[in-house]
C-alpha cells in the first residue's frame, strides 16, 4: 500500500468520523429540543443543551464506588463509542465506504453487538445494584430484538444477493429498481425498531431507566458518563446511516450527487428515530420479548421468504 493510499484512507476515516460525530450531536440536540418543547421551556436554547452537558461532564470528577471494577467499567465506556465508529467503516457515504468489506452486513451487526459487552461491563463495573439490573435488562432486551434484527439485515442482503453494503445500495440505484423499503417494509420497520434497542433509546430505555436510578449509568459520572451517553447517540446515528444503503436506495436521488442524498436520508431517518423515541412510551422487557418472538420474528421470516421468492421470479 502506497503512502498516498494510506493518507487517503486516513482522510476518509477522519471525514467519516466527523460526519458521524456531527450527526450524533444533531440527534442529541433534536432530542433536547423535543423534550424542551414538551416541558414548555425554550426549545431553541435546548439545542445547545448537549454541548453544555458535555462541558459539565468533562470538568466533573469521575466517581468510583468502593469495590467497583474500574477496569471493566472503563473498557465498557470506551467500547460503546468505539463500536459505533467501527460499525460505520462499512457504510458507503456516496460511492465509497471507508472499508468496503465483502461481509459488511455481518461486520456491522458484529460491531453493534459489541454494545452488549460494553453496557454490561459498565453496569457491572460500577458495583451498583442498579447498574447490574440495568446491564441485565439490556441483555434481556437484546435477546428479544437481535434475531428479528438479523433477519431484517439478511433480507436486504438476499434482495441484492450480496453481503457487501455498497452492492446492496448499487442494486437499488439501477434504473427500473425500486428502493428495498418497497419490497421489504416489515424488515425496514423491524430494523428501525432494533436500532432503538441497540441504542437503548426511547421505548427501550429501561437499561438506563429512571425507576432504577439511571441503571447501567447509575454509578458513573464525568468523562465515563459522557462516553456512554455519546456512544448511545453515535450508535443510533450509525444505525440510521446503515438504513440508507440497506433500504433507502443509498445515494440514489435526482439532481444532486450521491453523498448529499446519503446525508439527507440519514438525517431524515435519524430525526424520525429520535422523534419516535420521544413519543412512544417505554415498553418493558418481558412485554417486548413476547411481541418480538411471537410477532416480529415470524413477520421477518415471512418477509425474508417473500423477498427470496421475489428474487427467484426476478422481480428484484
Amino acid at each position, binding site marked *: 500500500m502506497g503512502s498516498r493510499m494510506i493518507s487517503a484512507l486516513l482522510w476518509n476515516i477522519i471525514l467519516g468520523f466527523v460526519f458521524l460525530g456531527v450527526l450524533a450531536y444533531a440527534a442529541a440536540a433534536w432530542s433536547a429540543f423535543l423534550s424542551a418543547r414538551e416541558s414548555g421551556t425554550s426549545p431553541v436554547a435546548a439545542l445547545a443543551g448537549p454541548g453544555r452537558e458535555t462541558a459539565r461532564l468533562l470538568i466533573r470528577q469521575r466517581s468510583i464506588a468502593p469495590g467497583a471494577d474500574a477496569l471493566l467499567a472503563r473498557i465498557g465506556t470506551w467500547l460503546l463509542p468505539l463500536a459505533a465508529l467501527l460499525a460505520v467503516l462499512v457504510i458507503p457515504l456516496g460511492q465509497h465506504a471507508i472499508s468496503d468489506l465483502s*461481509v459488511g452486513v455481518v461486520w456491522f451487526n458484529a460491531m453493534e453487538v459489541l454494545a452488549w459487552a460494553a453496557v454490561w461491563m459498565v453496569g457491572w*463495573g460500577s458495583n451498583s445494584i442498579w447498574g447490574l439490573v440495568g446491564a441485565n435488562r439490556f441483555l434481556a432486551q437484546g435477546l428479544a430484538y437481535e434475531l428479528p434484527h438479523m433477519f431484517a439485515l439478511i433480507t436486504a442482503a438476499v434482495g441484492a444477493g450480496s453481503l457487501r453494503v455498497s452492492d446492496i445500495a448499487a442494486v437499488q440505484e439501477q434504473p427500473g429498481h425500486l428502493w428495498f423499503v418497497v419490497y421489504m417494509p416489515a424488515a425496514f420497520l423491524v430494523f428501525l425498531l432494533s436500532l432503538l434497542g441497540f441504542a437503548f433509546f426511547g421505548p427501550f430505555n429501561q437499561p438506563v431507566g429512571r425507576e432504577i436510578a439511571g441503571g447501567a449509568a447509575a454509578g458513573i459520572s464525568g468523562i465515563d458518563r459522557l462516553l456512554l451517553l455519546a456512544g448511545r447517540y453515535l450508535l443510533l446515528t450509525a444505525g440510521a446511516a446503515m438504513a440508507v444503503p440497506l433500504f433507502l436506495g443509498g445515494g440514489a436521488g435526482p439532481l444532486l450527487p450521491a453523498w448529499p442524498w446519503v446525508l439527507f436520508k440519514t438525517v431524515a431517518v435519524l430525526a424520525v428515530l429520535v422523534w419516535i423515541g420521544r413519543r412512544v412510551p417505554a415498553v418493558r422487557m418481558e412485554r417486548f420479548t*413476547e411481541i418480538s418472538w411471537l410477532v416480529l420474528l415470524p413477520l421477518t421470516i415471512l418477509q425474508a421468504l417473500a423477498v427470496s421468492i421475489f428474487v427467484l421470479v426476478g422481480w428484484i
Partner: protein
Amino acid sequence: MQTVIFLICAVGAVAAGIAVFRVDSMARATLALLASFVVAAIPILLLGLSYLGVLVILMMVMEMMIMAVFMVMYMMNPAGLMPMKMVHNNRMSLVIAAVVFVLLAAGALLTPWPSGGRATSDPTLALGMDLMGPHMLVMIVIGLALFATMIAVVVLSTHRGRYDRFGDDLRRRTPDDPVRGGLGK
C-alpha cells in the same frame, strides 16, 4: 506482516486464556475468555475466511455476554458477586489439560495436510464443501435433532406446564402467567 499479526493473536489468545484462571471475579473471567475467543477469530480472517471470522466475533460476543449473566447467577457464593478463586481440583485439571493439549497438538502435527493451496474465489464456500459437502443431509438432521433436544430440555425443565397456564381442562382462554407478556396473553 501476516506472521506478525498471527503471532500477536496467538500470544494474546493464550494470555487472555491464562487470565481466565488468574483473575478473581466471575465477570473478569468471562470477559477474558471472550477476549481470547475474539483474538482467536482474527487468524480466521487472515486465512481469507472473512465471513467465518466476523461471524465468530459476532457469535462469541453474544453468547459470552449471555454466559456472563448465567456464570454470575449460578456461583455458590452470593450470586457470584464477590471475589472468588477461579480454579479448583487443581491436580486432575492439570492432568486433563495436559492430555487434551497433547492430543490436539498431535492431531495438528500428524494430520497429512494438503500442500499447495488451491486458488478459489470463495474460500468460505470451498471450506464448507470440504467440511461437509457429502454430509450435508447428516448435518441438517443433526441440526434438527439438536434443536428438538433444546426445546425438549426447556419443556422438561420449566416447572409450569399447559395445565398451569390454561387450567385443568385447558379451557381458559388467556393463560395465567406470573409475568404477563406484551400481547395480553
